[in-house]
């Protein structure tokens, strides 16, 4: 088996790593996540200039035709810097839904704007009452003359407060039948209220309520089975992406911890000399290596498409949820009091790993999914 990167992939990785190194030291990140939007508009433009906003789109759509490997490289690098720019939601997830469900006209309206960095789109599919089941929704879209009327609530819309437009799943009821529809909703339309919040690791998300929001027909991207499938795949992509991010974080965290224990002295020796701690760090290293392996497996399965891809992503998310939590906790413990402060980046990596377990369904949920699909 050959796991080496192509020349283009290597160049991409180099430029990503260079960006993170130069622009995303801990203090710079702190300044970025503390501004109103929670990310840097300047960096977003840089992403556009470097072509990163075009990565996952097909060449016909003006993209670079990147796949899971490119997503993996990007998110791993972003993990190491805890990059706050909303690539995951605007480009990867929203981009996928629009490219795969939208009409030519809709694609023309949104994709170039996304690629050029002019538009933010967010995915609004999660609902409090249904956990992470994205197929069952309470939000309704009733057919009214010339369009639809949306009512309902979506929770934890990542980057929802900055989005120009939201991709909203809703049950379409035309009187006879109901089916799942996906709408592209301009956030300036009356009836949308956004409860914006920061997240524990410095991210941004919002709960969004739709109260008699009237849309015209052109807002509907698609409906029926195609939507169900596309949302499912979009979630798999998002899950895979945060797992790649987690692997980047884990690599950085175990290294940071090892380095810390080489310099921190107690009882006259670097604490890394204590065998109890050595074995713990060896376990952290092994957790990271295993995570890297499973990430590659999932990247391959996703590239191949097909039935096994979902299963592979659930395996990955289960593993990362558990391994990430463990590795994060160990990093704090081994840093002692220093690990408990807001002054070291360790705490933020730890918090992001904790958040990643909760996003897209935690380890238990994915284990359950995996178990149900056992052959």
């Amino acid at each position, binding site marked *: 088996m050959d796991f080496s990167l192509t020349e283009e992939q290597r160049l991409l990785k180099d430029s990503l790593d260079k960006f993170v190194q130069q622009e995303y030291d801990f203090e710079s990140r702190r300044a970025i996540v503390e501004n109103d939007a929670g990310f840097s508009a300047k960096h977003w433009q840089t992403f556009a200039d470097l072509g990163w906003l075009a990565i996952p789109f097909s060449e016909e759509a003006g993209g670079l035709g990147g796949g899971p490997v490119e997503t993996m490289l990007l998110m791993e690098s972003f993990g190491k810097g805890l990059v706050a720019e909303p690539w995951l939601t605007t480009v990867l997830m929203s981009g996928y839904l629009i490219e795969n469900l939208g009409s030519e006209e809709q694609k023309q309206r949104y994709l170039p704007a996304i690629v050029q960095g002019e538009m933010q789109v967010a995915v609004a599919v999660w609902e409090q009452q249904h956990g992470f089941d994205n197929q069952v929704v309470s939000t309704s879209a009733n057919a009214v003359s010339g369009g639809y009327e949306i009512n309902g609530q979506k929770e934890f819309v990542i980057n929802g407060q900055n989005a120009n437009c939201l991709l909203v799943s809703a049950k379409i009821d035309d009187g006879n039948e109901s089916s799942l529809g996906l709408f592209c909703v301009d956030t300036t339309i009356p009836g949308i209220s956004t409860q914006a*919040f920061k997240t*524990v*690791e410095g991210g941004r998300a919002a709960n969004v309520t739709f109260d008699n929001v009237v849309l015209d027909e052109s807002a509907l991207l698609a409906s029926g089975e195609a939507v169900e499938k596309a949302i499912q795949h979009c979630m798999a992509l998002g899950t895979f992406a945060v797992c790649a991010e987690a692997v980047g974080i884990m690599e950085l965290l175990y290294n940071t911890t090892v380095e810390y224990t080489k310099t921190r002295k107690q009882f006259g020796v670097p604490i890394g000399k204590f065998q109890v701690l050595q074995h713990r760090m060896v376990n952290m290293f092994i957790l990271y290596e295993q995570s890297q392996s499973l990430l590659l497996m999932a990247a391959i399965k996703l590239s191949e498409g097909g039935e096994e891809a979902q299963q592979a992503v659930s395996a990955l998310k289960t593993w990362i949820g558990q391994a990430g939590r463990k590795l994060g906790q160990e990093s704090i413990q081994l840093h002692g*009091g220093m690990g*408990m402060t807001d002054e070291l980046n360790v705490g933020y990596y730890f918090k992001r790993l904790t958040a990643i377990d909760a996003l897209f369904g935690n380890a238990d949920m994915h284990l359950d999914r995996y178990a149900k699909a056992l052959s």
Partner: protein
Amino acid sequence: MDLTISKKYQDFRAEVKSFLEENLAPELREAGRFTTSVFSDSGLAMNWQKILHKQGWAAPHWPVEYGGTGWDIVERSIFAEECLKAEAPLLVPIGLQMCGPCIIGFGTQEQKDYYLPRMLSGEDYWCQGYSEPGAGSDLSSLQTFAESDGDDYIINGTKIWTTYAQYANKMFCLVRTSKEGKQQQGITFLLLDMNTSGITVEPIIGLDLVHEQNTVFFDNVRVPKANRIGEENNGWTVAKYLLEFERGGSEYAPSIHFQLQKVKEMAAQAKTTNGEPLLNDHTFRRKIANVEIETKTLKFTENRIKAALGSGQNPGPAASMTKILGTEISQKVTELAIEAASLNALILQPEAIEPGSGVDPIGPELTLTAMPRYLNTRATTIYGGSSEVQRGIIAKMVLGL
């Protein structure tokens, strides 16, 4: 073994309950409910201490002659349990639980007469100055130096992680008075006034974004020798005595049990993928069950230790065992809580758990403390002797390794 609950204890429980009923004002209960560490809101905790003090209940574990209640070990547990259930604020332990017993055990009559009443009434607010940037687990390597100058010491050095130094007017600390001999030998236990000139306090913000800890700098700080507890160079004996109180003085199981009940409530409200309450989810129930079994196990381990203490024995290394168990099991409970809170746990909303803020929570109120507790509780296996250090003690003292 006496397993019957006597009438005496039933009456006592009723008395405690009705006292709490009458005296725990809503804002005090709110402070208790929104507690995310071993400390409740500082001001409200002090208000509560004043109310308890009036009743004579501020320090149940102290000897009666110094203001204790004279309750036996069962009554003390009943009191603690009822306070927990009523969600009373936690009293700041640094004075009452930590410094108090040291003064009682090692102080002069004059020191006892002066400090203990002020500690009980809450007039003095204490902080603990042990750790230093270079002296954490290896506490006895501390370098803050107290130089003798007539009737005073002149102190120079730095203390770190000093919890609540920003509120405290008093500190008990360990300083070096001699560089001779083994590092444990040149240490002295001192009490000092935080208003003394030359002391500077700088905040350390925690990863839960709360300001609990501080760095305290000493620049030629003059402290009377009369403030010394015990002999010069004999502070390590006092410190070790205190560490045992810090580690084993309180029971963990009751509060873990209480937090676990809250996780169940949260899980009853949360929905899984199929729209069912999370509490009905087989996997999650089994996880709760496992931690509940661990908690029950700890409860009876603690009961055995209490029985031994009741018959006059010292907790010794058993305190290390319960500290390891208590802190590690409570960490597991906080993990279950963030799982039950799911995405709601990720929402950063410190204002909503500020007692009296009136800020509406985003998401269910029960989930508000899940993440702050999860983050804060990571510290419990680090402070007061880390889990690694405690295991080291057991290996040496119990297993003879």
